[in-house]
């Protein structure tokens, strides 16, 4: 007996405005996660980076 897999491709078209918005959101999330999140695992990993960036608060 053969298994059948169905593979489909969906094409989504977005406007430039949405693309830019998604990109800004992604960049903001990455920056916040690296520089400002209090979650200990991430916070400790980027401790030295925060202390070396002049205006980023750590303690």
């Amino acid at each position, binding site marked *: 007996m053969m298994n059948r897999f169905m593979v489909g491709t969906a094409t989504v078209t977005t406007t430039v405005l949405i693309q830019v918005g998604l990109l800004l959101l992604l960049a903001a999330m990455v920056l916040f996660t690296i520089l400002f999140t209090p979650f200990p695992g991430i916070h400790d990993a980027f401790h030295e980076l925060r*202390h070396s960036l002049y205006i980023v608060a750590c303690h």
Partner: protein
Amino acid sequence: MAAGDKPPCYSGSTGISHNCGKTQTRTRKLTMNKRQWRHLILGLVALMLALVPGTAFAAVDIEFGTDPPAEEVIPEHGPVISTVRVVDNGQPVANAVVEVSVTNPTVSPLFSTDMPMVEGKPLGRLVLAAPEGEATFNWLWPIRGDYSVVITARPAEGSTAFEPVTKEFSYQVSENPTKRNNLIILLVILIGFGLLSGFVLGRSSVRVGGQA
């Protein structure tokens, strides 16, 4: 008054008569009783004591400095050798005690330091003996900004060589230049990423529109 007329003869309040053909002077005999003499002498003695230096408490001054100087101090790099001198006309005052209180600077929340929880709070307090008029201690300045250093100098126990004096110093520490450079690098990376993203998105948008 017509020319040639004589001015009127009158007698002034000073007791000197004018224009009366002759001048009369009245004299008043100066008499002081014992009480007045005593007050006069006491007043003169007080005036002399006030004018002659050295008879009252010595007017001491406080000098504060660090090695390296404040312009070369980098936050969290140290320790910095700090020196307090108690002087009277440039000469060290012996048997002094100095009390040093340091308050951290307050920085704008928009451009926070890396340790905002200590901003504006007392950093420390030291009481040091200065038998030769000089006290030295090591200090670590944790963040950039304008520190308030309040120093009180007082004579050692049992001494009344001078009156306690308090002086406030402003100690300006600049940020580590490496941190400033790192921030500039981060901003350049972010701006570069933004420009690249804009270029890619803009180009793909033009292609989808069929105008490329």
